[in-house]
């Protein structure tokens, strides 16, 4: 209604002697005609421009509906519909880009503090460091591509319900930190002392993998961001759901490999800096597991990650518990599987095996779930 000059003036057309008044009308409303998906849409548009049944009578039509039908039938629709513009990629924002660096930085500071202190202060430093890293992680997961509730996030919005994954994640990380030493001590009949916080004590602390995992928050966020951006582009350009799934599979695996590469590099770096070697395979497996679980969670699939993380944590706990349980009379056979594993491949093989199997299961699950278009559907419009 903004342009009254475009309003139809049938009287004037007849005065100018147009042979085909409907054609002139169609020319005047060509946008409407080309856009319309059915005659009723043209009728609604014409009425909004002030054309009534009495006007339609001058075009030799009974009412606006039959006039609209003629216009709908006559409009040429041979031109292919133009491809929609590619969607705007999710924005890289300074807040999440910086906050993903937070856990790594805090963890590095905590490790340094633990290394520099002794005795009571060391305990305090360790506790404060753990708390700081937890808070940093919380901040990193609240915004950006790793967030479950970000407005820019794809996929159906999950409700308040979520699998309780936090305690299990905590347990898995704690195991990486202390588990190998505990297992070795347990098999040798210990542990006799509490961990001292050094990598060379009787119950050694393996800080390098945890530091690497904390640092890996940043590459995880960036790879997830990359996945979202690429998936959005693929979504816009694919013709069918099968096409989309076929395009997503290599993208998903590539993203995963990219993250693994980054994590491996971080592990090597941290091992070199802290002077610890080994334990990189289990950290790699754990990192992969946590990355996949987070990826699924951000896309609205909360059930599988919760189940798999719980199962992994349980497996590790059962491994440890079986060693302690074997000390009871008559139950010595319980420790045999773990003992065999440890003597063959070392203490790290237990978490490697558990996390690796779990990560593999989640990877298979991810390639099934995240190649679906519905997982990448744009989130609900603003209220």
């Amino acid at each position, binding site marked *: 209604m903004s342009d009254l000059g475009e309003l139809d003036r049938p009287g004037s057309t007849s005065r100018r002697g147009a042979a085909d008044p409907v054609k002139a009308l169609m020319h005047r409303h060509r946008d409407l005609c080309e856009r319309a998906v059915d005659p009723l*849409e043209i009728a609604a548009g014409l009425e909004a421009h002030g054309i009534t049944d009495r006007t339609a009578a001058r075009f030799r039509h009974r009412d606006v509906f039959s006039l609209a039908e003629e216009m709908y039938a006559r409009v040429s629709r041979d031109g292919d519909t133009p491809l929609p513009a590619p969607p705007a990629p999710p924005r890289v924002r300074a807040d999440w880009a910086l906050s993903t660096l937070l856990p790594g930085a805090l963890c590095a500071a905590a490790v340094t503090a633990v290394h520099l202190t002794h005795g009571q202060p060391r305990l305090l430093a360790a506790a404060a460091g753990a708390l700081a890293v937890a808070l940093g992680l919380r901040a990193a997961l609240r915004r950006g591509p790793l967030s479950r509730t970000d407005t820019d996030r794809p996929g159906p919005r999950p409700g308040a319900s979520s699998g309780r994954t936090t305690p299990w994640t905590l347990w898995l990380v704690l195991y990486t930190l202390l588990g190998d030493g505990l297992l070795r001590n347990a098999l040798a009949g210990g542990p006799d002392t509490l961990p001292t916080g050094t990598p060379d004590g009787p119950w050694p602390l393996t800080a390098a993998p945890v530091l690497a995992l904390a640092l890996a928050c940043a590459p995880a966020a960036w790879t997830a961001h990359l996945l979202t951006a690429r998936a959005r582009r693929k979504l816009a350009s694919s013709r069918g759901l099968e096409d989309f799934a076929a395009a997503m599979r290599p993208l998903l695996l590539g993203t995963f490999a990219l993250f693994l590469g980054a994590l491996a590099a971080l592990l090597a770096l941290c091992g070199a800096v802290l002077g610890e070697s080994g334990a990189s395979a289990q950290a790699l497996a754990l990192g992969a597991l946590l990355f996949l679980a987070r990826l699924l969670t951000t896309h609205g699939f909360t059930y599988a990650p919760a189940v798999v993380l719980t199962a992994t944590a349980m497996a590790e706990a059962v491994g440890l518990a079986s060693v302690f349980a074997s000390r009871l009379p008559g139950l010595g056979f319980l420790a045999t599987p773990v003992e065999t594993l440890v003597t063959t491949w070392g203490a790290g093989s237990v978490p490697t095996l558990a996390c690796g199997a779990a990560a593999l299961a989640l990877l298979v699950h991810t390639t099934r779930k995240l190649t679906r278009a519905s997982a990448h559907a744009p989130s609900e419009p603003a209220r």
Partner: protein
Amino acid sequence: MRIGLLTEGGYPYVSGDARLWCDRLVRGLAQHEFDVYALSRSEHQEDEGWVPLSPNVRRVRTAPLWMAEDDEVVLGRRARRRFTEYFGELAAVLCGGPGGAASPAAGGVPSAVGGLSGGAPTSEADRFANALYGLAELAREEGGLRGALRSEAAVRTLERACRAPGAHRAAREARVPDLLAVAAHLERALRPLSLDWYEDDGLGTVDLCHAASGGTAALPGLLARHFTGVPLMVTEYGVRLRTHYLNAPDAPPAVRSLLAAFQGRLAAEAYERAEVVTAGNTHTRRWQERCGADREKLRTVYPGMDARPFDEVGESPDCVDPYTLVWVGHVEPAKDLVSLLHAFAEVRKQEPTTRLRIVGAPAGPEGAAYLGHCRTLAAQLFPDEAEGPHAAGDNPVSFEEIGGPELPAVADAHASGAVTVLSSVVEGFPVGLVEAMLCGRATVSTDVGAVVEVIGGTGLVVPPRNPRALADACVALLRDPQRRARLGAAARARALELFTVEQNIEAFHGIYLEIVSHAPVRRVLLDGAGAPLPFAVPAEAHVPVRWTAASPRLAAAAGGGWVAGKPVRATTPVPAQEGA
């Protein structure tokens, strides 16, 4: 009687559409009880709260349409298969393609909505209805369908329907983002399916469902009718389908085509199942007929206006200045004030003492710009003039707003002139014209929208965008005071007869009684042992008196094998108002 009033984004919300009408209806029919079932449209609307409720509103149940409440419903294998079947059928109907084996090939139908008119294949409508009610039953059994409607299975089913042979052109071109968009929109539109309103303590207890608008608001009514046999009545003051076309967001053709098909089918289904469909004017009625409403079901119930503010002016027909024309309304381009100014120039040539008062505030920024344009034009066309060489002059065209000391109310604006002019090129139901009629003014209006229908023979009507005709009509009235008075009196009589609140409420009351007498809800009441209770519904049930409180409290037992339908709990005594 107990009436279930179904609204979408309307009553009882403060910012709702048609809340004034609903409020008057509810207050006007104080002898009946109303249960309001409201779907809210936005969080903002919910935050603004409700209008004060009438005491005969027994309960208000609301559900948000803007928010997906996550249900934890995971469909089992069988339910999933049923869902895919029904949703596939729905999608096939929307795509215009042939669906199940039972349906005949419908390849000839060019477009789903286009085929609605005239001899539309009824099987298509049946398929849509079957799919819709199938989904509704599934939602009722499983406790919700939101998850399923958003799932990959739904998107996949849509894709299959779009690619099926016989699907129309726009649907065939649907790409993956389009499918996702359609699935999301359908999920939104079908949210009423997952509500728990259709149980025996919800819409099952009402005697009549009255949907205050078409479209989504009618959907709960359709489901209530399907589940419990409650008769449905649909009132439309604006056609929802037409609004959908005008307000549809800019989306790819595939999305718009499928959604338009859904809205069209839904409207047709509502018109088909409703006992009575009321239209606000002939224009709405024509759209309803076009969308498949049966002519016998259609009633025109004109919107009602409160006549009291206009009584004083209407009863005393002496006007301030017999040489003044008045225009009242919101200033916007569709009102074509430019034509009016040109017409006024013509009038001035013949009657040089005439003045024109343009009363109204601009509507939006576009209206403000238009008002500025009109002021400039008026200044160019008419120089300021004064009574004598020593007096300050002013322009014969004045722009005023209601609310000032000179014009405190709309009635005063109409009262200040001899003739009220309406110069619109686009108009729906001309409220300003009815106000002028209630004031007993002679009117000159353009032939747009429902103007002719409203004015009848009680005013002059000229073609739109014809300043000369408008001017001639105005001059004719200005020169003939007796004709003015005759027309004004006739107009007031007509408006009091047709466009008052009382007639509106009376019309709805009559329709309610008619529906309840023709299509009473057959409820089988059971006593404590599960045996049917004869004469449990007294004859007074169908008489418009308060009877609900008198009915015995009865438990609906599961037994009664000889009863064909599901036994329904008798209406329980009136509980306290919910949330009110």
